[in-house]
């Protein structure tokens, strides 16, 4: 495990006035799943982790080998090693008028600058690394992003997030509307990333996906964590029961 691995420390967090607070630690190399019926707080939790939304109480602290930073805004989160992949690819993900390459590079534009000017060669090289790793199928890097299939658009967005070289990757329903073959490519990538010491938090609307990928699941109900399960205890039945507020 690398020395600069990030731990996400959530302390006494409350997502809604009156909802009970909870604490969590998300450690390097871990894949944590977030489940729940739509609108029960799991998405808000993910947005709070990314700094996009403010919690009602409590805070999110990033711990990098003892050096602690509180996440106060999206920008501090990104600057300190958090990457966030938004849910609605069409509405808040891709730039439809831009090329695949520009869509990939937008979060990391500064890295291609040589004496302040963009070096297209270096950008293409960076993109090629992720194109191979995520097996992105795109005719040309300068083709419009809208010429790609949904799955490949999603891979470009993932490449954009990974280009930040984050310590924590927050994924908001990453395989929504993505074909089965692409899903398995993504699952393999997620597992590899975790093996390399990244902490991943995956919100998914599909329980099977969480069971397949995650070592731990947090089930949300009424903006609170209704259940936390690991290993053998994680089954479709037990997760669904917790989602609906019944004892398993």
């Amino acid at each position: 495990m690398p020395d600069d691995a990030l731990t996400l420390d959530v302390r006494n967090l409350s997502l809604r006035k009156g909802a009970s607070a909870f604490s969590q630690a998300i450690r390097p190399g871990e894949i944590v799943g977030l489940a729940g019926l739509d609108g029960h707080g799991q998405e808000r939790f993910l947005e709070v982790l990314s700094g996009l939304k403010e919690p009602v109480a409590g805070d999110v602290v990033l711990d990098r080998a003892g050096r602690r930073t509180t996440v106060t805004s999206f920008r501090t989160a990104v600057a300190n090693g958090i990457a966030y992949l938004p849910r609605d690819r069409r509405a808040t993900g891709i730039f439809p008028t831009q090329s695949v390459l520009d869509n990939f590079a937008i979060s990391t534009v500064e890295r291609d600058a040589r004496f302040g000017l963009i070096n297209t060669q270096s950008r293409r090289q960076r993109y090629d690394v992720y194109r191979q790793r995520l097996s992105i199928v795109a005719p040309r890097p300068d083709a419009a992003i809208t010429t790609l299939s949904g799955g490949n658009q999603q891979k470009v967005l993932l490449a954009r997030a990974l280009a930040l070289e984050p310590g924590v990757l927050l994924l908001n329903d990453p395989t929504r509307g993505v074909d089965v073959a692409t899903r398995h490519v993504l699952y393999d990538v997620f597992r590899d990333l975790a093996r390399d010491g990244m902490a991943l938090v995956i919100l998914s609307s599909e329980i099977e996906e969480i069971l397949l990928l995650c070592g731990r699941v947090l089930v949300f109900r009424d903006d609170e964590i209704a259940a936390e399960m690991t290993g053998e205890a994680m089954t479709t039945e037990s997760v669904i029961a917790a989602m609906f507020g019944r004892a398993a």
Partner: protein
Amino acid sequence: MSTDGYSSRSAALWRSMGFAALLLVVLLAVNLVLNPARFHPAAWGALIGLAAPLIGAALASAPVILGGRGGIDISVGPTMGFVNAIVIQALFLKAGMSSPFVLIPAALLTGAAIGAINGFLTTIVRIQPIVATLGTYLVLTGVTLTILPAPIGPAPAWLKSMSGPLSILPLAAIFLAWWGIRRLPYYDQLMAIGSDDRAAYTAGVPVTEVRFIAYVITGTFAGVAGLMLTALIGSADPNIGATYTLIAVAAVALGGVSLAGGRGGLLGAAIGAIDIFLLQSVLTSFNVSTYVLQIAYGAILVAAVILTAVQERAAKRERA
């Protein structure tokens, strides 16, 4: 690979301003037949000088429009008029300063300052751009008339030469500046914001700063356009500047820059402006009245926007 890249880029260029470029060729041919003397290479300096303020106004209008979310600066025309008045009335005639090393920076700074005010109003106070810049439009028109109630002249000789043999210089300066900007990380961020600002925000782009800077760039370019206007009229006139605003927006739209943002560029805006200038030239050589000229502008603009939309829809169907 490189030829592929080239062909796709030229295809994109064609998609965005094919109609304007086609119109350019046709209008140029018609003008050459009608006015061979006026379009003779020896007269190009004066010809470009005549078209320069409109081209400059169109170039200045483009950056904020590219930034999207209703970004527009209708104070570009009055900014040109204000710069015209400041340079001639306040600096040249009253303070006796005629050096280009004073007047050019003064024009650029004035433009940049107005751009910064517009940027502050639209991105930080968050007033809708059209309302905010309408406010600046009215204020600037009034201030210009206050410091300069009636036309006055002359302009320094070096400045007047900028509408003659050296008329290409200020335009080249704008293009050179934009060529530089296109190579900065800033340009990618501007186009991303114009394409989808919410997506840009979640991708970590500092949306407010990038938009603010776009207004400053627009203001600075408007300052240069103000100098071109001053060079052309060789004097200061409080009433001319404002007339450039709407026709510049028409030129930008004609040149394939989407008013929704994120699509197009300064080359298209310039071609749109040249189209309008050439159309003007054709119609006046037929002794058509200025009212008909207005009708022609309007008709051409609507036709261009419709054609662009049709082209875009066809391209979308092709992809689907």
